[in-house]
């Protein structure tokens, strides 16, 4: 843990980008209830818990067509 705390300033951009990406995906999941497969709860968990890959998979494969 010491390494994390000592180097917090240079690590913040990395965490911020990952959290922001997850949140953008989460907002999209909650606002657009149409998915190519799966349901809202499943996607909400995936985008928040699977770091980086979750949002990518959601935007590429899971996102439904906009009506």
């Amino acid at each position, binding site marked *: 843990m010491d*390494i994390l705390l000592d*180097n917090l300033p*240079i690590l913040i951009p990395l965490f911020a*980008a990952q959290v922001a990406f997850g949140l953008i995906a989460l907002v999209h999941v909650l606002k657009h209830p149409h998915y190519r497969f799966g349901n809202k709860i499943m996607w909400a968990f995936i985008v928040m818990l699977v770091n980086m890959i979750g949002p990518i998979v959601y935007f*590429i494969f899971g996102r439904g067509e*906009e009506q």
Partner: protein
Amino acid sequence: MSGFIAFSKKEITENTRNYRLLIMLVIFFIFGVMSPLLAKFTPQLMEAVMPNLAEAFENPSALDSWTQFYKNVSSLGLSLTIILFSSCLSGEYTKGTLAIMLTKGLSRPTVILSKFAAAAAILTVSYWLSFGVAYGYTAYLWPDASLPHIFFAAFALWIAGLLYLCILMLGCVLFRQSFTSILFLLVITVIMGLLEQIEQTAGYSPVILVSKNVDLLSGAVTVSYFIIPLIISVFMSAALLIMSIVVFNKKQL
């Protein structure tokens, strides 16, 4: 020309709406930040997880940072770019949206050139953002490291990225499904890799541009080694784009 600009703008807007731009920027940014950090902190991480292996990772240098960067960007980054843009024409085929615009007077070469221009612009911005971030972090973490040809190595990978996009464009024009165009790209990549293995053609293949970047930084190869693959890449890209246009002109939608 005005048609090209208008359609390119529409392409950029579309790429923003379907989150391609966002994904590219975020992922390449994360790679840029992560690579130097991973190189720097791997020894500490290894010590915590596997103390007996930690010695092999001691004293990371700026070269390790760039090794990480080129490993991440050339494999994961480029694969993701390919997957994202593989659907750039197949979606239009299935929805039939291109037919409407073509009957309204949009020329066919414009479609291909605009699609490519938009994809290339997004790749360029994300890639150089990633490089800039990695450069900044590496300079901060290893203040007195000086490596040769840092920009040239990055430039080579960028040219290779554009070449892959051109191959993908031809794949998208030839085949209706995005999966098949990815397969087409893979086959071409494997062929280029094999040509590098054969003695007579070694040293010419564009594969060098994605695989030897770190050797350039470490001094194992010189800039002249990259010149021929670079020229071949540029000409191949142009040829592939022209072929895409020719095939697309004859294609039934």
